[in-house]
């Protein structure tokens, strides 16, 4: 039996070595090369002395805002979903848009937010002048939040759905107000769902790049944009990899921060 379980691991170990460890190793290796392929630490020095540090902070800030608003919308949505009669159907309807290609959805927003688009038509109905909504911080965060909502809702929905409703009744019976019940019972019991939701939103949000150009008109610069530029335009794979190393480190840190605890909630 023991042999059998170990042998079963082999294909997976092979997979991990080839597609997880090797790419990360290559990125780390390339980050130590300069344009001529010589070993150097200059890329790291460059990262700390130039605009990249500010860029990291902006990326972080926008990813935070996106995650925050996504959570703000998703948690109540998931909560009400669990209360509906045909919850699986409703959940399905929310998930369906995520089947559509990301780029296609982004292009659709160019039309929706455009001067002659439906949003401006509505603004005009209320008697205001049409304004260009595209290429603003607002449009960027709006579209990003829209894209991430389904990914945040699913884990929270599952956590809420698995929760035993008698715990809520118990809390209410024992005199807890609705808010206290939420704060002391519901939220702590679904925190794992929230954490995985944050992970699947925050981490990709850090390296968004196509939307920064199409919707934010390159006025929002994230680390993802910088990596694309370094690889495709400047052809400086070393610097591109260095930025990628920092992106990996940040992601690792955010994983640690939101890691699921094995022990039960605090007493």
């Amino acid at each position, binding site marked *: 039996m023991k042999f059998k379980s170990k042998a*079963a691991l082999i294909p997976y170990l092979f997979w991990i070595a080839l597609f997880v460890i090797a790419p990360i190793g290559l990125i780390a290796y390339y980050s130590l090369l300069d344009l001529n392929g010589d070993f150097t630490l200059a890329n790291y020095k460059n990262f700390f002395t130039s605009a990249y540090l500010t860029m990291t902070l902006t990326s972080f800030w926008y990813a935070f805002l996106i995650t925050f608003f996504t959570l703000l919308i998703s948690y109540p949505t998931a909560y009400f979903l669990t209360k509906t009669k045909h919850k699986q159907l409703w959940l399905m309807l929310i998930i369906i848009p995520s089947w559509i290609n990301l780029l296609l959805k982004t292009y659709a927003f160019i039309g929706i937010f455009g001067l002659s688009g439906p949003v401006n038509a509505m603004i005009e109905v209320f008697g205001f002048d049409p304004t260009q909504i595209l*290429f603003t911080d607002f449009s960027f965060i709006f579209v990003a939040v829209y894209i991430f909502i389904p990914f945040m809702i699913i884990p929270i929905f599952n956590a809420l759905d698995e929760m035993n409703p008698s715990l809520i009744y118990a809390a209410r019976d024992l005199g807890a107000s609705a808010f206290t019940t939420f704060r002391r019972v519901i939220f702590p019991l679904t925190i794992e769902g929230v954490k995985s939701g944050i992970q699947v939103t925050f981490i990709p949000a850090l390296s968004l790049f196509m939307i920064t150009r199409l919707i934010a008109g390159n006025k929002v610069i994230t680390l993802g944009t910088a990596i694309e530029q370094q690889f495709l335009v400047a052809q400086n794979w070393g610097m591109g990899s260095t930025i990628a190393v920092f992106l990996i480190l940040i992601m690792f840190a955010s994983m640690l921060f939101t890691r699921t605890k094995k022990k039960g909630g605090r007493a």
Partner: protein
Amino acid sequence: MKSLINVTISILVVCGLLWFATIKLDASSSAGGEGILTVYNWGEYIDPELITQFEEETGITVIYETFDSNEAMLTKVRQGGSAYDIAVPSEYTIETMVEEDLLYEIDHAKLPNLQNIDSYYLDLPFDPKNKYSIPYFWGTVGVVFNPNDIPEHLTFETWEHLWDPALKDKVFLVDGSREVMGMGLNSLGYSLNSRDDAELREATERLKSLNGNVKAIIGDEVTPLMINNEATVAVTFSGQAADMMWENEELDFAVPQEGSNLWFDNMVIPKTAQNIEGAHQFINFMLDAEVAAQNADYVGYSTPNSAAMELLDEEVVTDERFYPPVEMRDNLEVYENLGLEMLGTYNEYFLEFKMSLQ
């Protein structure tokens, strides 16, 4: 144990199928040779009817593939594997390709139609004596704008007009470090090939002062925005401007007088070529007066073919916005290959400018 064997077998089968598919794909993409010619060109950069015509005249089957940046094209040619017989890079990339020994020399004896090309476009610094490349199209970088939506005094004869307070939140820039930095340098009277760090610094500061006016820095997406009157002023390539003006007659185009970029896209035969004879036939075909005229009519960029210009509408070829006369071209500069290190510096400054935008 049985399921484990099943899993292993299915993984092996999938790997085998993928491997087989790769071999098949490789074979088809490198299926160069006598009867086949693989052309690697920019998107929307040829009249498809001409490909059919060439196939009928010569009996050669053309495989047509497109790229969207010089760098992407360069990477694929460098890697080999695909049998590109013709590619159409811009001048600074041709320099790089010659340096890296990626191009075959072109036999001028096989190109009788070469005499159609205006001598102005031959023997340029990036390829002396046209040993490796033959002109295809050329153009400039300038400002396309909608005169109805901006004050009358803004004609964009000078880059200065982009800084006009009346253009708050109205200016679109092209997402390219060479183009935007070049514009900054030109607006200060410096060369757009400057290697001087102080000049680049100054240009970046100058660009940063454009902050309030810049609406967005985007790529080809600007074309529909200009056509639908969603955007008012855009710094872009001449041919792209011609496309926009074709769809939206309100628009106008100007190349500021302090100087701007003059670019050339030339046909080359990369070292990946399998059908060198066919490649020469194709180049000669594209140089034919009627063919070049039809192509210029379709694509909208400026042709270097003087025999073709005689066949084109008088109105088109005398339009100084797209065919600036020689004395106006003196202010225009061709991009030099600055080397990767300098390109990196341009990129860093461009990034700094983008990050300063609010």
